[in-house]
């Protein structure tokens, strides 16, 4: 999941926080949001509703694209009482997670709140996710076989 590939995204900041929210668990978003004080009420415009999206692949980045398979995605759109509309698409069928992610997306667009939400929700979630990724990478790296070493030993 490398998301630096698409150039000229209209709103790279929003892209970043939506990616963080899409990977976060419902309980961690809810826990971190709880620490942000009172939040504006929100109404649901659409969903949360599960559906299927076709995942497309491309061999080696140069081959022609093919349908890899379908995956379950839950989407949700909310509007806060302050008038901001937030969207979320998350993998799986956990509806609460999609709603919380959409709510945070809406709050992040509100200039009065975005700094607090960034500090209390987005940044900690991003840290958790990079730590997890680094931990996994380190674990995998420990089992790596160095073929060139065996080659050197034989000669």
């Amino acid at each position: 999941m490398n998301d630096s590939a698409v150039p000229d995204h209209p709103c790279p900041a929003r892209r970043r926080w939506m990616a963080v929210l899409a990977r976060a668990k419902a309980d961690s978003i809810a826990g971190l949001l709880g620490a942000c004080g009172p939040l504006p009420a929100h109404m649901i415009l659409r969903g949360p509703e599960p559906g299927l999206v076709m995942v497309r692949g491309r061999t080696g980045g140069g081959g022609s694209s093919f349908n890899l398979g379908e995956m379950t995605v839950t989407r949700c759109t909310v509007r806060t009482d302050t008038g901001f509309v937030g969207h979320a698409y998350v993998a799986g069928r956990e509806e609460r997670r999609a709603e919380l992610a959409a709510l945070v997306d809406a709050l992040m667009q509100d200039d009065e709140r975005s700094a607090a939400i960034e500090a209390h929700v987005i940044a900690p979630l991003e840290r958790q996710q990079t730590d997890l990724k680094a931990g996994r990478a380190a674990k995998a790296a420990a089992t790596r076989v160095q073929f060139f070493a065996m080659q050197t030993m034989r000669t």
Partner: protein
Amino acid sequence: MSSGLSPGFGDPVGDAQSCFRAVLDAMARPGQVHRVGGVTAPGPLCNAAAAVLLTLADQETPLWLDEAAEPARAWIAFHTGAPIVATGRAMFAMALSLPDLSDFSDGSDEMPETSATIILQTASLREGRRFVMEGPGLREPRTLAIDGVPADFGGLWQRNHGLYPRGVDLILCAGDELTALPRSVSIREA
């Protein structure tokens, strides 16, 4: 990005199915008035017109939008995803006053089903100008009152009816009610 978007159907599957049934019945029995619900329409649309749009329009149905319906454009785009196009390419049209019917696709003799369906919002389907309808689906002529069509509506419609099997179909909406006027039906002012 502040906006006044409002929700669509309360029960997306059930409400869309019952509205679809109402449109189907109205097409089969022209002039029969049905109640539809489940949605609070964004201005200036009436609830029935909004329900029909949510039921019939999607990404694959190009829609023409009356200039007067412009305030509802964002709502329609969000909930249906239908591309907004010029009259000639539209499969559906959302009109607040009767547009020129000849601007819309009337299909071809081989594929008459490719013609446009016009959703026309009117003030009332209970009072106003009265028309006697005759044609398939009507054992006896039926009278329908429409408030909000131009004085020469009878003549305009007969021109469309004369194109049969080509021609456009009309879904009339007022408040929470709808009825249909398929191209197969001929009308005269009562």
